[in-house]
């Protein structure tokens, strides 16, 4: 039992944070579709989860989690989770995946579309959702796909409906990859929420009304405190889920660790992270007042990201319904 990120895991996040601070500033969100991707590729980000035999680092999801949180913090555009997390699970044999030269997008089961599919080389399209069952998926090359843009709130995470002429069936199970994608998205949401909170605190310290910084008013303080609490208690659920996703597979070196219900842990993480980010977005808007609504303020990118990622890979209500069903089954054992 050592429930804290290791120095290596934190150092990786620090590296990613530095890259993103330099190469994905808020101004880049207005002008570039894929800021910082090449730089992230250069530090090995897209090979973290790729097996060593395919030139990756063969790390676990939990190792990449703080780094993924940084991509949320920076509001990094592009199919990040799909390329860095889903692809190593489903397409580990695709050449150059680890180098970041291949971008992947995904239409999850029941999903409306694929994020940033126009920037992807390969698109994984899941069979229509069959409630809990793994209906399989196919891989579609970009040139064989027809994309129809879906309007949505997030200018930096554009969804497209995907139809296609040719496809290759996937021979790997979809469910573990989707669980990992859901947890990775939850980690990004934690990053988005933390950034929204930081920005709101900074604004509340500087903006003055009625002769005092608005951050000195109890209503503002308590609202932002509530966001801090929500984020603080959502994050460990996300970290646990990342461990559960891997621990559900027996490890040769250790005894088999008992994860009673990985899906339940994953849903708990996504629901809590999505709700924390939503609360952070509301609080950010209420703190900023009308200026928060303007296109001029960078805030809007993080608001949009909070909303788009909350809906990605299932919304909070959907995940809680799954948790409810799991609990109704009567197995209340916990991991750990």
């Amino acid at each position, binding site marked *: 039992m050592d429930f804290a990120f290791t120095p290596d895991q934190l150092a990786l996040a620090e590296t990613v944070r530095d890259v993103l601070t330099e190469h994905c500033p808020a101004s880049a969100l207005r002008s570039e579709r894929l800021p910082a991707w090449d730089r992230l590729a250069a530090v090995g980000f897209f090979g973290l989860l790729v097996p060593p035999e395919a030139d990756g680092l063969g790390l676990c999801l939990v190792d990449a989690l703080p780094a993924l949180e940084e991509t949320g913090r920076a509001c990094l555009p592009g199919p990040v989770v799909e390329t860095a997390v889903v692809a190593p699970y489903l397409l580990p044999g695709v050449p150059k995946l680890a180098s970041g030269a291949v971008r992947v997008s995904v239409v999850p089961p029941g999903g*409306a579309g694929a994020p940033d599919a126009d920037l992807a080389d390969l698109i994984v399209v899941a069979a229509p959702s069959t409630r809990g069952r793994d209906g399989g998926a196919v891989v579609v090359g970009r040139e064989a796909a027809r994309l129809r843009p879906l309007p949505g709130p997030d200018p930096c995470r554009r969804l497209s409906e995907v139809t296609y002429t040719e496809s290759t069936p996937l021979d790997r199970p979809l469910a573990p990859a989707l669980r990992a994608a859901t947890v990775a998205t939850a980690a990004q949401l934690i990053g988005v929420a933390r950034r929204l909170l930081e920005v709101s605190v900074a604004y509340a310290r500087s903006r003055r009304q009625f002769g005092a910084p608005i951050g000195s008013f109890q209503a503002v303080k308590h609202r932002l405190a509530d966001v801090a609490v929500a984020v603080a208690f959502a994050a460990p659920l996300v970290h646990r889920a990342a461990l559960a996703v891997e621990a559900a597979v027996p490890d040769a070196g250790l005894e088999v660790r008992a994860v009673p219900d990985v899906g339940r842990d994953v849903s708990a993480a996504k629901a809590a992270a999505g709700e924390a980010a939503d609360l952070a977005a509301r609080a950010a808007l209420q703190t900023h007042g009308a200026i928060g609504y303007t296109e001029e303020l960078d805030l809007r990118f993080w608001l949009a990201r909070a909303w788009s990622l909350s809906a990605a890979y299932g919304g909070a209500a959907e995940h809680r319904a799954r948790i409810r069903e799991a609990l109704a089954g009567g197995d209340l054992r916990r991991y750990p």
Partner: protein
Amino acid sequence: MDLDFTRAERDFRAEVRDWLARHVPERPPSMDTPEGFEAHRAWEALLASARLSAVSWPEEYGGRGASLVEWLIFEEEYWAAGAPGRVSQNGIFLLAPTLMAFGTEEQRRAWLPGMARADQVWAQAWSEPEAGSDLAALTSRAERADGGWRLYGQKTWSSRAAYASHGFGLFRTSGARHKGLTYVMFPLEDVAVRPVAQLDGLPGFAELFFDGVYVPDTMVIGEPGDGWRIAMAATSSERGLTLRSPGRFLATADRLVALARDADPALADRAARCWIDAEAYRLHTFHTARRITAGEEIGPASSMGKVFWSELDLRMHGLAMELLGERAGTTPWLDGFLFALAGPIYAGTNEIQRTIIAERVLGLPR
């Protein structure tokens, strides 16, 4: 106490419903685009042709002298019919009540009929960069000029100003804080207008820059220096009955319940709560209308309505976002959600409203 509509009220509802069924257009483009603005103006003119753009005004100004209850009925039918948003909102529901209460007969005759037909469209201009929630901190000023005033300074969050023809707001003529503010109408043609794009990318607001724009004395409402009192009366009506009639929320609630019909029961339960809350707002408003008709002052109690409807609207649209997930953008709910997010902020933030309720309704110490 009774809740039954009179024969006249029911006839009025039938007439409005019938007219709307025959005239409501397909959803026009956003009123924050040039073509959408014109489409909304044309719609206002069509409404005016049936004397339906401002039903509660006296006939001589373009209304039909409808009672408050009839106005509420009109609003219910209007939003249930899916009719367009009101591009004349600022004029009809904010400026007009002020002209009725504090303007001269000449001012009313000069401006109300054109407002009813949307010949002029009005922008409101309350806020300034350093006076958002704290209106008494306004610094834009009006300086005495021959037979009128010259306006200087900057306004922000001026809704509709990107395309409107006229505006109204407070300008400092003397004194500090609440004292020495004057209520002024002005044409926008000589004002520098910088549109401000919103989350949806459209200029729902603008910044206004005044560099000596001249307005004659006839554009001042009430006495110079009396603007704060006059504006507060308007703000009170803004927060009260006229800003957000129940009809809008009833229509939203009906659509939400339909959207949630086959949803997870936990979500359907939240939809049911919203639907009932929309009814509560409607009933509360019938009671308020009764009080106003009986000559009572509503005063700070209108802050309760502001808190209630703005949070209800946000809950409804937030729930719709959850129900629709990634498909929300293909429906009008996403735009509605972005609009609803502003509810707790504009027309006095909900924090300010709660403080008003606590201090002026409940009597808690400042």
